[in-house]
């Protein structure tokens, strides 16, 4: 009886349903959303705390025991991810209030945002593959709505591609689910794990895993499945793109992280070493090449998402406790920093009326605070110590070197240099230089100051994650060990069932 586990889903669901009733009462919409997110944050922290103290928390929806009902499972990793998600959500909400057009806000923006949180949190917490499909759909539908708000032609055009490609992925999801269910007769993840460890599929499981990798790879923007990502992120309202950039692709990474440590582990040398690792490296390189080529604030950031996904996938491919810890840190760090950077882009757009780097130069002279926050966030992304990105990077490098993956590490380091180059490009072109282009908001305006508040909060968090790295690392290592301990997962979710079927 662990209703706390499902609270991160129920709270935004109810909030969203309530918000549908009065889309035009803006202050009601805004503050109910913020309040709900705050409550969500508190609840998520409580959940994290409970998992830390009491171990994996299963929840059996409808009081039906696993594997028959829908099971939710909060472990250290998923609890951490929902918590970081709610922090990011709060920052993005604040930013939305001060940066969006009222017409967009009135078009069910806040309700859809809450439903998006339902989808994201549900994906993090579910212990059931089919239920994951459902939450993916919730997440996707909400994202279609949010990213097309405003309805400019470019936006509609790109949303269409985004939606179609993701729908194709959804049908592959169903295909893969069918294969899994036919073979193992269950879709409960813990049940799957124990049935898989009690049998040998002769490579067939890996084939199913590859289809899942494609499905989750589309969500995570793994190359060559990433084509849907950059353009809609460029076209959509920046506030919501900030949330997408920080969170949505990480849900894809999370699902790979979960399923490729719990379920598709029969032939890790092939699935992880021969398939996932090359794709991870490709993702890194293609992403950074894209980022270097861009001269638009949001586009540079969008391509960086792809590149950084490569790092996370690399960590999963290494599959050592340290590498997984590094990946978990990296995911959490990216959620915060990437959202923060997109919010910087949003602020710059609001100030200068453009996202073209060359059209807004001299922002540091006119808006020093934004410049400082952006610079810190950029360095955090690059992985300069003592900011958050460094510890994820260092952990991954160390894990890679310990696993003697020299080529991967060398490539990761080189790509890091590319990240530096492209972040500095933004700084050089739009923050340095003579003041050019218009300035719609002055440094003294209330709007600017309020926009800086969420950006500042995220940057402070990135700094804090670095200075308090020991705590972060301890947690991440515990989380990594937890996800590698499949027996404990099964025992927690299926008490009394899983233990006699030899591991």
């Amino acid at each position, binding site marked *: 009886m662990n209703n706390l586990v499902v609270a991160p889903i129920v709270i935004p669901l109810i909030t969203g349903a309530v918000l549908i009733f009065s889309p035009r009462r803006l202050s009601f919409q805004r503050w109910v959303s913020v309040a709900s997110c705050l409550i969500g944050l508190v609840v998520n922290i409580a959940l994290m705390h409970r998992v830390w103290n009491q171990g994996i928390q299963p929840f059996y929806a409808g009081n039906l025991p696993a594997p028959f009902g829908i099971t939710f499972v909060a472990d250290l990793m998923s609890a951490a991810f929902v918590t970081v998600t709610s922090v990011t959500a709060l920052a993005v909400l604040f930013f939305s209030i001060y940066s969006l057009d009222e017409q967009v806000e009135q078009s069910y923006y806040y309700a859809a945002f809450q439903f998006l949180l339902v989808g994201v949190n549900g994906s993090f917490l579910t212990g059931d593959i089919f239920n994951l499909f459902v939450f993916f759909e919730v997440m996707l539908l909400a994202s279609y709505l949010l990213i097309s708000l405003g309805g400019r032609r470019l936006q509609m055009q790109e949303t*269409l591609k985004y939606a179609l490609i993701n729908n*194709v992925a959804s049908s592959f999801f169903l295909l893969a689910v069918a294969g899994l269910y036919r073979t193992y007769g269950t879709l409960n993840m813990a049940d799957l794990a124990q049935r898989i460890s009690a049998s040998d599929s002769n490579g067939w499981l890996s084939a199913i895993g590859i289809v899942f990798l494609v499905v989750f790879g589309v969500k995570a923007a793994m190359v060559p499945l990433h084509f849907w990502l950059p353009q809609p992120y460029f076209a959509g309202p920046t506030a919501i793109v900030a949330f997408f950039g920080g969170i949505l692709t990480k849900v894809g990474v999370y699902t790979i992280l979960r399923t490729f440590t719990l379920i598709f582990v029969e032939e890790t040398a092939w699935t992880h070493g021969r398939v996932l690792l090359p794709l991870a490296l490709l993702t890194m390189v293609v992403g950074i090449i894209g980022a270097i080529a861009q001269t638009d604030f949001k586009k540079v950031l969008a391509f960086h998402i792809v590149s950084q996904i490569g790092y996370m996938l690399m960590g999963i491919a290494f599959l050592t406790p340290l590498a997984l810890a590094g990946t978990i840190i990296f995911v959490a760090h990216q959620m915060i920093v990437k959202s923060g950077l997109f919010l910087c882009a949003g602020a710059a757009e609001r100030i200068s009326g453009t996202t073209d780097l060359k059209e807004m130069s001299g922002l540091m002279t006119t808006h020093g605070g934004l410049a400082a926050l952006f610079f810190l966030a950029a360095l955090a992304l690059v992985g300069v110590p003592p900011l958050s990105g460094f510890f994820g990077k*260092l952990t991954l490098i160390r894990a890679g070197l310990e696993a003697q993956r020299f080529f991967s590490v060398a490539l990761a380091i080189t790509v890091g240099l590319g990240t530096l180059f492209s972040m500095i490009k933004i700084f050089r072109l739009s923050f340095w230089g003579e003041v050019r282009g218009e300035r719609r908001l002055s440094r003294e305006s209330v709007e600017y100051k309020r926009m800086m508040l969420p950006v500042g909060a995220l940057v402070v968090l990135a700094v804090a994650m670095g200075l308090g790295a020991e705590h972060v690392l301890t947690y991440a290592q515990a989380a990594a060990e937890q996800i590698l301990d499949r027996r404990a997962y099964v025992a927690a979710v299926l008490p009394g069932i899983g233990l006699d079927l030899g591991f």
Partner: protein
Amino acid sequence: MFLNLHLVVLFPFLLAVLTLVFGRRLGRHLGWALVPFPLACALYLLSLVPRVASGESFSATWNWVPSLGLSFSLHLDGFSLLFALLISGIGALVTLFSIHYLDPDEDFGRFYLYILLFMGAMFGVVLSDNLLALYMFWEITSISSFLLIGFWHEEADSRAGALKSMLVTMAGGLSLLAGIVLMGIAGGSFSIRELADKGALVQGHPYYTAIVVLVLLGAFTKSAQAPFHLWLPGAMAAPTPVSAYLHSATMVKAGIFLTAKMAMILGGTGLWFGLVAGVGMVTMLLGSYLAVQQRDLKGLLAFSTVSQLGFMMAMFGYGTPEAQSAGVFHLLNHALFKGSLFLLVGIIDHQTGTREIDKLSGLRRAMPFTFAMMALSALSMAGVPLLNGFVSKEMILAALLEPPFGHNLFTVALPLLGVAGSVFTTFYSLILAHRLFFGPVTETTPEKPREGSWGLLFSPALLTLLVVVLGIAPGLVEHGIVGSAVSALRGEPVAVHLALWHGFNLPLLMSLSAILLGLILYLWQEPVLAGLRRVSSVRWNVNALYDGLLQFLEVGSDRVTRRMMTGYLRDYLVLILGFTALITGYALARSGIFGFDWRRLALTEISWTEFAVIVAMVVGAITAVVARQRIAVALGVATSGFMVAVLWVLWHAPDLALTQTIVETVSVVPLFLVFAYLPRLRQQPFRPKVEGINVFVSVLLGAVVTGFLLLSYGHQLFPSIGQFFVDNSLPLGGGRNVVNVILVDFRALDTMGEITVLTLVGLAVAALVRSRREPADIDEKKEMSGVMINPLILPAFSRLLFYLILIYTIYIFFRGHHNPGGGFIAGVMAASALIIWALAYERPAAMALVPVEPRRLMGSGLLLVASLGLGAVLFGYPFLTQGFTEIELPWFGRVELATALLFDLGVWLVVIGSIKGIVMELSDGRPIAHETGASHGREESGRS
């Protein structure tokens, strides 16, 4: 000690934060407020000299990230002390100098903020015992250097120089990090002192070569060793005090510092000697050779610094006690004379407005003090006796003659490189000491030359004083500074002897001949320089390489990205589907699809009816692909859909069949409504290549999916848990209709998710259509023009039909728990009744039948479902626990009361709300606004 050392490192950062807050208010007076800090540090460190000299060292540790081996542990020994003294001492002088140097309206807050960041980081580099902490501070020095070079960021030169320095030093930094981690793996520690004890372990490790190369790459980039010297001249775009402080006295020596320290762990091998000494001496010659050709004074000093850094670097490659002494002493001397030279050039620039050598001459009279100091410092650099440069240079030349592993061609060449380099050193020193100040008084400077203020002169004066004092009495620093530094590097007390006169020996001869040859070249400078410049103007040098690389990176990546991100959905889908097909196909092949026993599939059991239905399904799908009109496409898709429903019937799945049929029916309506808004399908010319790829990928994917499904079918390893639902739907769910019980009870959470999806669809259509709708000035009569169906027959029937369907809907809803039916089907049916009404009559009339706004319907449905879930929580059960009971009612008999029914009601509300919303929004007949002038987009969507 613990507190003091950490304070030295952390206080600058604290001051930096204060500067951020108060800096703007203080303006140029900020400098005065800050000077006491580095001064106090310098005095404090000086007070430690006697104790350090007596062999004491100080350590302080803060644990930071023990899991990764990162601790904030500091260690002060003789070598670190020398550096710390330079950082604080020159830091104080530069802070002071800048107050007078920068224009009063400059942004002093930002300037000192960066300087403080640098100061703290540099202290961190030289005091850290933990290599990971050292790396952290190392990177922060690169970043503060970047910010300082770009201080005048309006200038393109500053931006380019800053970028170059950042890229080169950070690339080296990353290499260093990799080296450090490898060293940690090899030696099992990140503490320099612990690793120094395990030198043999590291040197015997297979990673040793990699570690040396990676670490040295870090050191060489930082200390601008060839071929990485390219960033230092670009860094001269920084304000001159910054150049004096970072780019000659301290930061660029961090690479030397690291090499010297790492020699304790990695040194003493042929590899180390060859790399460090070789690169150092080549850099020494190259730097001085390039320095003489510079026309810009700061450029000259930059290359001269490169050259001198190479000199020092080589000494720590030799690693003999003599070489280390020479290196340490020269390090100190160079900081003094080069710091002074930079500041003096700054004064000339400040007072005349130019740094171009060709424009400056005869400044002797106008700037006598500057002249005197410049002459002394420059001659010291040239190695003229009685100045400090002479002593250390003599020592270096002597050390070069005594290689650690005996003589060979390589070790003979190195001193020759040193002499050749020294010739050029004399040459450019004379340019500084003589050419600027003698000859005709210049008239080409932007401002009339006059002597700098005392505020400007004070800092270089102090440095020049030390140049002279140490030149005459090097013994002053013999034991306390140089001796303890060398002892620290060797890990044992070493007696260092610094003397002015060593007698007539080979080093002296080398020294004197270098001065003499340099003097001769200087006297013949016109033809010599012309010749040199002709040689240097070759197209291929490292700068061209850097520019080319950058260009290649930007152009190349742009090309690659454009090629990949074509913007066409078709391309994306072809790539994504093709990739999926290939990788899945490969996975299937290796999992044994070809060895699979196909007889297990028992395909013969397919009946003729099933076969016929499937053929119809395929025909529908093909029709949808090849059709040239939208209606035909829709009909093709619908055919496939209905055939699926038929299959469900054949397979005895009435619920699914019912749902499929009704959904197919209702979804046709919004589809046709949308068609009313779409332009005619554009006829594409037949493109064999494109179509060929499409067909190929489709067929491949189809084959792979088929194979996957067949293999799935044949791979049943476990029985399905499905039997549980069949057995328990009545006892646990209280219903005989298993499908319904699964939907509203066993997996109610999935259903909750799905109705959220439906809600979102309804909201999305409303939000999108409204955002593009033109203002409501359209004639209401035009409504429904897109979808007028036979106006005579339909109304007559539809009224009857409407009520029939509605009554049947109620029946379907209530029977759902035990028989095929349920909230979803009932909801879609009710919505279809509404649609029929709307088609027959006017839309408003139909909509008025359900007087509640769609969003309220959907919201209530969701809230109902959620509150049911919460109700269970109130009763102490898990979320969404359902309950049921049967009661006896008069007339009705036994009636079942189940929360599942309420859940179904919620589903019903959402479904009807969502469909009503979609149809209402799409059918109001008002045109959708089009953005003008964007025909490109339509073309693109047509192609995709």
